[in-house]
């Protein structure tokens, strides 16, 4: 700037310098930002700002400086705003230098808009000053109008018209100031400031920087307030107030509430005016160190002090009680609380007005019987700076017939309330005075006839004729700290005198059901047996209550938990997946009512039943039978509950419930087992048995074309005697061409067989396999039985499918042949027959061990060859040496071709030796085997 012409006067020269600097700065900044060098641009701006901010100029032109400053910030902010879209990662840029680091806020446009607004405010203040000083502004209007920007940047000139010619004439500083003041008047700075702050506010909101945003909002609100746009101001202030409330910034909140209160007053909304006033009066501003200060920018709230709070408190209560003397309110006629315009405030759990009135309600007990009285303690707390007198308190419950009213004995009863609250209990208290931070505790007794929950919902305090505060009741146990006051260092007191009640007290109480006077009986005895329809008699007998619209609910629940259904086992009972099922409910016949009621059965499901009980007079009884069927042995819990109403048929009438439960075991009654037996002393060589010795799961194998015996036994595994009615072997239908014949050995039962617990019933069947098929289906064993209790019990069929057996032709069959008994000293013949059933020559090794009770003749060891389809007989002569049951010499055969050793069972060797020849009566004893 050195060497600029001294042509211009001082003020205009400064203007010119700044304008030129602005132009240059704009270009540099644009270039830097265009290149993405945000850090450099910000540093450059800071330098630019630093060099010019002190060039204030002469006092009368100060507003020009602030306007210029504001413009610098605005322009740079806008440039940043435009370029920030291109620069994605501002934060990663190395900002600033070591000694003067740049904070990340300086790269955000919001910061510049905010400062632009700040400087514009300065400008406005200075301009107002300048305007008040230049009284002569209006006179010079004509002269100023012709001032235009000259050809040079930053210079102004007067435009003179001389005919068709235009000429520029330079201005004096005085003229220029006048021009500038007039120009300045044309702009509405307020709106400009609001626009700037709004930009900043929105930008901060987008960045979720709420506190700075709130500060901007506060400034906008103030501008709106000054511009007289109270609605806009109120919205902003409300938002901001909630932040300050949450974070406990009492001084800031006080200021905002002051504005809100004035907005409400200007707007004429009494309710809000009173709400804001009450909140202000209850704010904790009396304590603390920094609250006695005087603000330079004192808002309408006034200084935050105890005295000011008391003043506000008096104002509010003067208004609500209806006394005149409100200096500030008097001028507005709308702001009155009258009979036509009553005021009702609601204070809920999150309301900021909890400071004003907090109601804590605690029942002294948790559970009571109906109609039994219990104590309730009502505690009220207020943080208002002065004592408050309550005229009347109304306590409301969810059961409205429990509501009661507490009157202040020192006040005359209010006529207006007498008629609409009729029928409610009225109590009277000697004093209903609330002092600051001191609980007002009132204890009364309450009783309710209705069972269920009795909860205190709200407490309504009436002050003055037309003002009520409805305060939501809170339980002391779950009461939250007072907002704002929780940060204050004050004495904490509990709402009830009893500290235990203050910790556990609840605003709700459980009122129990009246005791049932109906007996419910489940008459089942003993375990149930699988398969039968087990009958559980249920008896409902009234001992004091009549039963109206009674309903039985029946539930079957697995004792071990879980359902009665297991998906894994469904294949066995695919039709019937429940292991235990409720089959039916039967009512003893012969009563007319029951016929009517049967169609009222609502539901019977597998494990759930609903059944209606007819009307029973006092003293009557009614019974029904539940039929339950077990498919698997399993214990279940049977729950039966009776719900009835003791007084009337109405569906809304109160229900009384009786519950009964019974655990019932389900047991298997009949266990069916079976066994195959081959002919005595005849053993086929079954190859499948040799090969898979380890595998015991193989189905049984039977030799082909041999007669086998099938022994089916049914064992009573229950604890009660059973009657067995019959046992059959059913063929499976799908296998039509059966390759075996099963013959019954013996007749069917003529009369039922009694089985005591543990006893077994056996039946013999003969099985002959005739076909070449390797598989043999035996069929299903069916046992029909019944309990041996009464003749009425229905018979139960228990089925069990017998496993299939393999059939194969044995290559060799070894049979022992000897007489059925022997006599001491008498020799007898002992034959071992080895039959070769194959087409091959079989080499067979055999050996015979000595037995001590016998003398033996014949070869001990040898190898013989058995020709195809023929029989080799080894013959021995034995002389018994001892009497009684004796073991004959043991005989071992080894088939070389199959490398299969074979030894008959011990039973096959056993023989009884008589000491002398027995004399049998009757038929002669056969000698053959």
């Amino acid at each position, binding site marked *: 700037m050195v060497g600029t012409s001294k042509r211009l006067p001082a003020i205009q020269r400064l203007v010119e310098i700044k304008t030129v600097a602005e132009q240059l700065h704009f270009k540099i900044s644009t270039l830097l930002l265009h290149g993405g060098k945000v850090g450099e641009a910000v540093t450059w701006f800071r330098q630019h700002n630093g060099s010019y901010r002190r060039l204030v100029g002469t006092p009368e032109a100060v507003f020009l400086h602030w306007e210029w400053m504001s413009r610098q910030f605005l322009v740079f902010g806008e440039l940043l705003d435009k370029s920030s879209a291109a620069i994605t990662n501002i*934060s990663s840029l190395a900002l600033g230098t070591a000694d003067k*680091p740049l*904070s*990340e*806020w*300086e790269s955000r446009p919001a*910061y510049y808009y905010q*400062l632009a607004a*700040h*400087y514009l405010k300065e400008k406005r203040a200075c301009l107002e000053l300048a305007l008040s000083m230049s009284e002569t502004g209006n006179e010079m209007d004509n002269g100023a109008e012709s001032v235009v920007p000259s050809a040079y940047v930053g210079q102004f000139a007067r435009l003179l018209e001389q005919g068709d010619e235009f000429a520029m004439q330079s201005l004096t500083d005085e003229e220029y100031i006048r021009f500038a003041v007039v120009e300045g008047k044309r702009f509405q700075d307020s709106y400009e400031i609001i626009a700037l702050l709004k930009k900043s506010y929105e930008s901060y909101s987008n960045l979720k*920087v*709420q*506190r*700075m945003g*709130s*500060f901007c909002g*506060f400034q906008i609100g103030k501008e709106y307030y000054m511009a007289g746009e109270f609605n806009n101001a109120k919205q902003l202030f409300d938002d901001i107030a909630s932040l300050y409330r*949450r*974070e*406990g*910034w*009492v*001084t*800031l909140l006080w*200021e905002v509430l002051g504005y809100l209160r004035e907005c409400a007053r200007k707007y004429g909304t009494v309710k809000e005016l009173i709400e804001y006033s009450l909140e202000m009066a209850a704010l904790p501003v009396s*304590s*603390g*160190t*920094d609250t006695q*200060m*005087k*603000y*330079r*920018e004192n808002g309408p709230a006034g200084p935050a002090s105890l005295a000011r709070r008391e003043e506000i408190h008096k104002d509010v209560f003067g208004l609500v009680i209806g006394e005149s003397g409100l200096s500030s309110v008097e001028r507005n006629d709308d702001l009155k609380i009258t009979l036509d315009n009553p005021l009702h405030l609601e204070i809920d759990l999150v309301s900021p007005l909890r400071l004003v009135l907090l109601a804590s309600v605690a029942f002294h007990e948790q559970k009571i019987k109906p109609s039994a009285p219990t104590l309730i303690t009502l505690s009220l707390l207020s943080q208002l700076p002065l004592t408050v007198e309550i005229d009347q308190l109304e306590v409301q419950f969810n059961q409205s017939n429990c509501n009661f009213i507490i009157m202040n004995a020192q006040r005359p009863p209010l006529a207006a309330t007498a008629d609409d609250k009729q029928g409610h209990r009225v109590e009277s208290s000697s004093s209903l005075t609330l002092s600051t931070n001191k609980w007002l505790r009132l204890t009364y007794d309450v009783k309710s006839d209705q069972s269920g929950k009795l909860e205190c919902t709200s407490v309504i305090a009436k002050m003055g004729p037309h003002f009520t505060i409805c305060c939501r009741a809170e339980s002391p146990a779950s009461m939250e700290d007072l907002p704002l006051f*929780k*940060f*204050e*260092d004050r004495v904490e007191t509990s709402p009830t005198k009893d500290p235990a009640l203050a910790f556990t007290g609840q605003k709700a109480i459980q009122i129990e059901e009246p005791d049932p006077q109906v007996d419910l009986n489940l008459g089942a005895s003993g375990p149930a047996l699988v398969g039968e329809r087990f009958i559980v008699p249920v008896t409902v007998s009234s001992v004091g209550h009549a039963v109206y619209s009674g309903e039985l609910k029946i539930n079957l629940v697995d004792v071990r938990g879980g359902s009665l259904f297991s998906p894994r086992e469904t294949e066995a009972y695919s039709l019937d997946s429940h292991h235990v099922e409720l089959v039916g409910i039967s009512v003893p016949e012969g009563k007319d009512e029951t016929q009517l009621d049967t169609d009222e059965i609502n539901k019977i499901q597998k494990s759930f039943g609903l059944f209606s009980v007819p009307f029973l007079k006092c003293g009557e009884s009614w019974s029904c039978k539940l039929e339950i069927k077990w498919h698997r042995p399993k214990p279940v819990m049977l729950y039966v509950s009776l719900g009835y109403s003791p007084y009337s048929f109405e569906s809304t009438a109160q229900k009384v419930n009786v519950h009964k439960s019974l655990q019932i075991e389900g047991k298997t009654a009949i266990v069916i087992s079976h066994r195959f037996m081959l002919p005595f002393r005849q053993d086929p060589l079954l190859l499948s048995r040799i090969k898979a010795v380890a595998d015991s799961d193989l189905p049984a194998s039977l030799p082909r074309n041999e007669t086998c015996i099938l022994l089916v036994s049914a064992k009573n595994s229950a604890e009660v005697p059973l009657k067995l009615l019959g046992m059959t072997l059913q063929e499976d239908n799908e296998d039509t061409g059966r390759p075996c014949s099963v013959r019954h050995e013996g007749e069917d039962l003529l009369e039922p067989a009694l089985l005591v617990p543990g006893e077994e019933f056996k039946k013999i069947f003969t099985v002959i396999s005739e076909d070449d098929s390797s598989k043999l289906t035996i069929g299903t064993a069916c046992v029909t039985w019944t309990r041996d209790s009464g003749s009425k019990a229905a018979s139960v069929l228990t089925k069990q499918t017998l496993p299939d057996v393999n059939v194969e032709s044995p290559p060799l069959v070894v049979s022992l042949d000897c007489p059925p008994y022997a006599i001491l000293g008498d020799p007898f013949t002992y034959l071992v027959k080895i039959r070769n059933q194959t087409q091959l020559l079989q080499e067979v090794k055999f050996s015979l061990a000595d037995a001590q009770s016998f003398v033996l003749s014949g070869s001990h060891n040898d190898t013989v060859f058995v020709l195809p389809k023929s029989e080799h007989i080894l013959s021995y002569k034995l002389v018994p040496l001892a009497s009684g049951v004796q073991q004959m010499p043991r005989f071992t055969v080894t088939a070389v071709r199959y490398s299969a050793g074979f030894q008959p069972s011990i039973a096959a060797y056993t023989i009884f030796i008589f000491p002398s020849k027995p004399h049998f009566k009757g038929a002669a004893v056969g000698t053959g085997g």
Partner: protein
Amino acid sequence: MIVCVAVVGHQNNPLYIQSFTEADDALKLHHIVHCSLDVVDERVNNPKKYGPTLNEPFLGLLYPTENYKVYGYLTNTKVKFIVVTTGLDVRDADVRNFFRRFHAAYVDAVSNPFHVPGKKITSRTFAERVSTIVKSFGLSSAG
């Protein structure tokens, strides 16, 4: 020169705030302190961006306003100290030194068995000690 000192609790609530100006602009200072909590939040939430600040309670310059500079300090118990200074040449070392002494005073104040943690600090001794520390700010380096 220090114009305002504040202790801010866990819920960003002021525990102690005191301004030291002749002019009546305490409210403005309260606003500045409150706004600076946004910067503290940002620094605490993005520790990587601000370099190796492990176990470093001093947060440095939070943000410059037109006339003031705001410095922050975060104790191990996440209590924030905010200082608002004015004047051109405020050195980091001085501010660090100030915070160290202020922290000691704070620790002594909250160690009082009658002080309930989380409540405002109302101790008169603490207030006196703070004003002594504020007055001596910058003197040691200047002298």
